[in-house]
């Protein structure tokens, strides 16, 4: 390996990157757009569920019950309607997700000490929102029921009832349960995967497709130098993207950063190295850019996005998919990112992840150089 030739290849590749200023611009804008979307617009947090009320009873008791829902910040009562037709239609058209129906004789049953029903009609298509909404509704009804029972005891001369066991819930790491706090750090991994699958996976395929590979082959440059040189150029781009993501995440979106900056930097480099090597490996295996891109999307971006635990938690997946996720390097990196940003943990907890990333990067780099040599020979 000669340093001079390596430098030459790197310089050539950097020139390619800088000269194609639109790709460069896109490579920098893409992470920013994703960050803005996830930091500002996209959230899984459920509140203000659009709700209709259909009160068939029209008594002070039924109104009191409905007021319990009105008081909760999770429900937004849009309208009080007077028929099932209206609620059904609204659910069909997705204007509302939930309708609360208080049946006739609700207050009569309630005052007689019989079982009084409240009916909830839920649009379950978005099951995540629906189950969270049901949980909130259940909590509203249960606490109201306990209060009613206690009030009734007092009215009849008894002692107020106390709730015997109360859950005291404390949420660690992300106490206000904001989804951006875990999505924005994870985005760093996804962004790097995008760079790897869209930039580095094309670089060698393009040389083949445009016929410049033959020219390169006639120079004394060796396969290993070619791979490393190209890698270094894209590495620089990846680091810029990483810094942008971290700075925007921490300073604009106020994502907590509790760990060690240098640890994050070191592991990011490790991950980036592996991801880019994989891109080059793909690029060396196929001679068409379209195919390299397709393969890159399937093997880098898609698993990085879906099987890394970035948004969708791995424990919910079927066992087979969970096993597959062990070979997805982004999985380890997302763990590291969450650990460093939210939990403030370091090597003591995350050493295994670091080792896995190092092993992956080493294997893939060797593989890429080998592949290159085979293709060239």
């Amino acid at each position, binding site marked *: 390996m000669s340093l001079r030739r390596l430098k030459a290849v790197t310089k050539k590749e950097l020139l390619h990157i800088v000269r194609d200023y639109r790709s460069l611009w896109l490579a920098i804008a893409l992470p920013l757009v994703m960050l803005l979307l*996830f930091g500002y617009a996209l959230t899984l947090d459920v509140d203000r569920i659009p709700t209709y009320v259909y009160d068939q009873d029209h008594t002070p008791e039924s109104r009191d019950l409905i007021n319990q829902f009105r008081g909760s910040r999770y429900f937004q009562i849009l309208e009080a309607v007077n028929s099932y037709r209206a609620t059904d239609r609204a659910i069909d058209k997705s204007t509302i997700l939930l309708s609360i129906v208080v049946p006739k004789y609700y207050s009569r049953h309630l005052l007689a000490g019989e079982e*009084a*029903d409240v009916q909830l009609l839920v649009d379950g*298509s978005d*099951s995540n929102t629906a189950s969270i909404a049901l949980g909130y509704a259940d909590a509203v009804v249960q606490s109201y029921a306990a209060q009613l029972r206690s009030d009734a005891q007092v009215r009849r001369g008894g002692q107020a009832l106390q709730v015997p066991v*109360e859950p005291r819930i404390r*949420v660690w790491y992300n106490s206000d349960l904001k989804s951006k706090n875990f999505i924005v750090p994870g985005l760093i991994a996804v962004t790097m995967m995008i760079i790897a699958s869209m930039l580095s996976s094309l670089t060698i395929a393009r040389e083949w497709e445009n016929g410049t590979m033959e020219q390169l082959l006639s120079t004394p440059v060796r396969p290993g130098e070619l791979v490393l040189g190209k890698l270094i150029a894209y590495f620089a781009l990846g680091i810029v993207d990483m810094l942008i993501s971290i700075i925007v995440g921490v300073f604009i979106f106020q994502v907590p950063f509790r760990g060690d900056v240098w640890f994050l930097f070191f592991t990011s480099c490790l991950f980036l190295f592996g991801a880019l090597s994989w891109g080059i490996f793909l690029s060396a295996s196929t001679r068409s850019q379209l195919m390299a891109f397709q393969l890159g999307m399937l093997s880098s971006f898609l698993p990085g996005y879906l099987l890394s635990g970035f948004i969708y938690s791995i424990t*919910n997946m079927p066992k087979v998919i969970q096993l597959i996720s062990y070979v997805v390097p982004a999985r380890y990196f997302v763990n590291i990112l969450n650990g460093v940003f939210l939990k403030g943990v370091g090597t003591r907890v995350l050493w295994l992840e670091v080792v896995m990333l190092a092993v992956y990067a080493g294997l893939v780099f060797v593989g890429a150089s080998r592949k290159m040599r085979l293709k060239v020979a």
Partner: protein
Amino acid sequence: MRERLLGIIQKEFRQAFREPRMRTMLFLPPLIQLFVFGFAVNLDVDHAYLAWMDGDQTYESRELLAAFQGSGRFDVVALPASDRDVQRLLDSNKADLVVRVLPGFERDLLRDRPTSVQVLINGANSNTASIVSSYASSIITSFASQVMQEQNRARLEARQAPTAVSFQGPQLKMQSRVWFNPDLRSRNYFVPGIVVNIIMLVTLMLTAMAIVREKEIGTMEQLMVTPIRPIELMLGKTLPFALVGLIDTLLVVVAALLLFHIPFRGSALLLFFCGALFLMTSLGAGLFISTISQTQQQAMMTTFMFFQPFFLLSGFAFPIRNMPEAIQILTLLNPVRYFMEIVRGLFLKGSGVDVLWPQMVALAVFGVVILTLSSLRFRKRLD
């Protein structure tokens, strides 16, 4: 005209299907995407990892544990003994929640003193955390109301009037009926959305790449010296991919139904009709990208840049309702949003034209406008 058009269509087909590897690339990635997306995209929490820290070790504390286990939603994975164990479990993601029963739990219950159960939740994934938190609190609350009834009965039997009055208290019960997706499986919601995602990505990218490829390797000049007209070239370039898009739609829908057992309640014909409407938009966008890109790499990056925001703001995973007001208004300009609503309506709700017509009109308008504008631009570029 017809002859030339047929000629170019034939050429495109030959180019797309000549290479066996390319042939597979047209149809295999959509299926892989469906598979991975379908299994991975899931926001349900079925088996939360529970660490049980029992400082009381009594009958009542074990009853509470049984209530957690009996719910079927928690797997007890650890029995930590110290705070350090708890910290370690949460730090390393080995537990989603830790329930801590403090010493004296049973004693307090027997003496009618209010007590509490500590629940520590790993909030790193806020979605899992809020679901887990609502499960846990509902289990504890229903345990509490059971205890409350027992206490009341005990007091009545001991005739400790007037602390308790012989009387059945008011009872309130919530009856929920879940429509369209009674088991609340998020797969039923996501898989139809994945269909949209795949159709869009495939057609957008193939069109953009096919045209830019000719530019990049210089065969576009050769095409231009033939008597073919821009409109014919454009049709010839897009029609094959429209066909591929429709075949992919069929393939992915059938695979989704077979693989994931999701319901399809609407009309298949309507789905294809709306699919064709949507293809106008996505092919038009592909054409547009091809006019502003010089290299395949640029085309890909631009495709991705288009695709990501449109897809993320379509309501696929992140409800539009949750977005800030300004963004919600912006999504009205997003054709993918309408197609997403149509596909989900067809799969889950069995909606018909009477409900879906506004979305269909929007899709048609977008399709015609985008396709016309891109073709005009495409023609100007060629002239």
